[in-house]
């Protein structure tokens, strides 16, 4: 039998789902793919299949998340998430899985599929889908439709006012920059003509026009500088904007005076260039910050767990954030317990690895306490909520994470301090120079020399360099899938001496491979049994095993039969059981096996097979780690048992004393705290506290929400080690460029100060030299360094 490809996602078919649609036989790999195809077929939207570039653009729906959207119809949910106006409702979803033009097309076609949807608008840069729907439309049905199409919607709780304010502010900024650029460009044209020797009448005309074009800058473009410096003055601070404001005022006064008295001191061109460049660089920085992962985004993911609440004996779906103390909730096997509480009914076990990092299941029975973030393993539990969301275990960890965050940002303002001292001394020197020449010479000389001094020492290069270079560095990183949440990270990495790695998913792929299959029966039969039984589990290991078997069978060009187990259920750890033809099959970990991840298949207690799994180190892991070792001390820190950890450690060349195994989250944090100069790279929620207390906390792809929130940097690509290396290089080079530029502009300013005091340069020369220094700095940032160009 030949291997067919799925007509929706193009994957090799292992288990066949066939259907004759409009007289043509179609093959599908899973029910999900089949249902998408049918939805598109029914609504005449088959164009989708022409629009996508190739088959791989549609993801197989085999591993589709089981979605429950009933909670979206809860009135309390609607109140806070849905905006209602003009007889229609509006909601925004963050949609997982959007990647190509075909996705855009199909999602914006939603109104044609469901008539209650009035319009759908997708923003691909943020993966945000805004849906307007009729008042009688059901949100749960809309969400189900989106999920049937193969995307996963997360409702976004974004305060409409905040969002509007943000976009309004950005629009104002762009307008300000546009107006400034308009004036600057034209003034520059006139100034060039004057410098090149326009005749007298033309010169007067150009100067007049420049004077007019300068007005919008003076009264509109430069407003942010006035606001900043006066705001700072009010709180008795010196802002970097103060000398800029001074230069604007003094320069404008002299220029307009020259215009009237036909003096030759006109500096409109200098001043506008200064203002325009600074406005632009600040805006660029702001945009790059807005684009990177912001905290509100992550929060909305986190509180999006629907829960079953018991109301008058019936189970109703509600949103977790609306649960209160003393509410009764029901948690089914495989679900996460949303809030701390006491078990009322049910005997089960919970997986507390999210909170404690221990994989071993904990038995629970009525009266026992359960904690938020734990996963219920076996039996339906009825729980009475005892703590509100912010007092629950998970909430407390979140709080700790947030506090750590705040402390850090307050600590580091060194660069600002330096510029403040610079501004202060610049002002003092200018005043002294003015007074000195007022007494030794006359007012005009004093004024000119003081102005020359202010213009030439304008800390514009100084103020421009850090934001510009950091923005360039951050955007380079973002292009490589490295999202930096806090730009201070770039500085902090320089101080790091140690790197701590979590094992699974960071050093290893987190993708378990079968290394040994001890068969005591018939391997083919065993594979059939395990493949089908594991389909009842959502554990990543189960997924890896199914992949392995499916791969093997598709190479043999044969198809796996479907087996329906009765009473299949998950057991604690990675166990499963289910019966087939009245014989009970179980999969459970092998007792007394600590060296490797392993499990065995039994039929009514008779051993059928033993399987050993291994998580492979990432590609290039060894080489990258070797390179990192040149500058850092590397440590491996894991909650796993010593056997597994040591084996991976040996493989990657970690010395024994730098391997920590069986470490609980709190201990992880203590170890990190004992090394204040460390980078922590991790993924699980049990890494969150450690990630947060590290100097630089890095969360790798597929991390838990909690770690994402705690981290300073997030890798959005699977190759975390290469990303880490890139991050370190870019951070190092960015700081080097900043240092290079800052020292250049300081030296430049020193020379400028000396020349200005000695009266060797006129304000005109200063006005030409000052932008040159800014452009030098600009070019230096853009060209960056050779190392950065080669590596990123």
């Amino acid at each position: 039998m030949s291997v067919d490809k799925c007509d929706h996602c193009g994957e090799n078919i292992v288990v066949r789902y066939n259907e004759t649609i409009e007289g043509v036989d179609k093959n599908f790999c899973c029910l999900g793919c089949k249902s998408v195809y049918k939805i598109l077929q029914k609504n005449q939207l088959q164009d989708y299949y022409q629009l996508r570039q190739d088959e791989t653009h549609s993801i197989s729906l085999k591993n589709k998340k089981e979605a429950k959207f009933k909670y979206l119809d809860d009135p309390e949910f609607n109140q806070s998430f849905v905006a209602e106006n003009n007889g229609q409702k509006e909601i925004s979803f963050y949609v997982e899985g959007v990647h190509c033009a075909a996705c855009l097309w199909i999602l914006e076609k939603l109104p044609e599929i469901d008539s209650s949807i009035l319009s759908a608008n997708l923003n691909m840069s943020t993966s945000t889908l805004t849906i307007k729907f009729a008042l009688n439309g059901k949100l749960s049905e809309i969400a189900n439709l989106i999920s049937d199409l193969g995307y996963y919607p997360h409702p976004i709780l974004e305060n409409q006012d905040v969002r509007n304010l943000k976009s309004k502010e950005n629009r104002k900024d762009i307008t300000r920059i546009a107006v400034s650029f308009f004036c600057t460009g034209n003034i520059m044209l006139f100034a060039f003509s004057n410098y090149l020797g326009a005749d007298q009448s033309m010169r007067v005309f150009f100067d007049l026009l420049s004077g007019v074009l300068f007005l919008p800058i003076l009264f509109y473009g430069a407003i942010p500088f006035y606001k900043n410096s006066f705001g700072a003055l009010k709180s008795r601070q010196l802002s970097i904007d103060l000398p800029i404001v001074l230069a604007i005022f003094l320069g404008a006064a002299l220029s307009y005076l020259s215009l009237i008295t036909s003096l030759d001191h006109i500096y409109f061109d200098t001043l506008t260039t200064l203002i325009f460049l600074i406005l632009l660089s600040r805006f660029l920085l702001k945009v790059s910050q807005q684009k990177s992962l912001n905290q509100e985004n992550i929060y909305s993911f986190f509180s999006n767990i629907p829960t079953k609440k018991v109301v008058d004996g019936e189970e109703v779906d509600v949103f977790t954030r609306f649960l209160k103390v003393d509410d009764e909730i029901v948690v089914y096997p495989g679900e996460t317990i949303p809030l701390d509480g006491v078990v009322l009914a049910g005997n089960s076990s919970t997986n507390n690895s999210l909170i404690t990092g221990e994989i071993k299941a904990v038995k629970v029975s009525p009266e026992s306490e359960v904690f938020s973030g734990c996963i219920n393993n076996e039996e339906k539990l009825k729980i009475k909520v005892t703590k509100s969301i912010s007092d629950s275990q998970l909430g407390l960890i979140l709080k700790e994470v947030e506090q750590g965050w705040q402390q850090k940002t307050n600590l580091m303002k060194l660069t600002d301090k330096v510029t403040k001292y610079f501004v202060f001394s610049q002002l003092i020197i200018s005043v002294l120079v003015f007074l000195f020449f007022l007494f030794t010479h006359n007012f005009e000389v004093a004024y000119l020399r003081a102005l020359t001094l202010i213009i030439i020492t304008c800390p514009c290069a100084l103020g421009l360099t850090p934001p510009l270079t950091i923005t360039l560095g951050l955007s380079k990183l973002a292009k490589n899938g490295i999202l930096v949440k806090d730009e201070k990270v770039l500085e902090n990495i320089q101080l790091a001496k140690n790197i701590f790695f979590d094992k699974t998913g960071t050093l290893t792929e987190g993708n378990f491979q079968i290394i040994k299959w001890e068969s005591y029966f018939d391997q083919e039969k065993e594979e059939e049994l395990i493949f089908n039984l594991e389909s009842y589990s959502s554990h990543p290991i189960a997924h890896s095993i199914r992949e392995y078997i499916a791969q093997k069978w598709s190479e043999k060009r044969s198809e796996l039969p479907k087996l329906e187990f009765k009473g299949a259920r998950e057991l604690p750890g990675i166990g499963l059981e289910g019966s087939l033809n009245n014989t009970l099959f179980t999969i459970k970990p092998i007792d007394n096996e600590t060296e490797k991840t392993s499990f065995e298949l039994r039929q009514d207690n008779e051993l059928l097979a033993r399987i050993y799994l291994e998580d492979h180190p990432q590609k290039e892991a060894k080489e990258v780690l070797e390179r990192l070792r040149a500058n850092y001390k590397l440590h491996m820190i894991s909650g796993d048992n010593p056997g597994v950890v040591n084996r991976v450690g040996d493989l990657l060349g970690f010395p024994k004393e730098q391997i920590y195994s069986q470490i609980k989250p709190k201990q992880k944090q203590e170890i990190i705290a004992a090394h204040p100069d460390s980078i922590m790279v991790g993924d699980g929620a049990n890494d969150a506290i450690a990630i947060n207390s590290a100097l630089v906390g890095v969360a790798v792809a597929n991390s838990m929400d909690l770690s994402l929130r705690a981290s300073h940097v997030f890798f959005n690509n699977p190759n975390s080690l290469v990303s880490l290396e890139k991050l370190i290089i870019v951070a190092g080079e960015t700081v080097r460029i900043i240092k290079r530029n800052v020292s250049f502009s300081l030296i430049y300013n020193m020379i400028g100060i000396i020349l200005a005091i000695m009266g060797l340069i006129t304000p005109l020369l200063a006005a030409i030299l000052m932008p040159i220094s800014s452009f030098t700095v600009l070019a230096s940032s853009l060209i960056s360094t050779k190392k950065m160009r080669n590596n990123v």
Partner: protein
Amino acid sequence: MDILFFTIPIALFLALIFLGVFVFSVFRGQFEDLDTPAYRILLEEKNIKGKNNDSEQSGN
């Protein structure tokens, strides 16, 4: 060269119009999503076709 006294203000005025158009488009939100329209323009044709199909259907 006296013509410059006349043409420069005209050039400035023209540029002012462009500035106005730009500011208008900024406030219409045209610069808020720079990625999606690039894709959407590819789909325009298909969109119209889709609509035609619909009207044919309702006509039948």
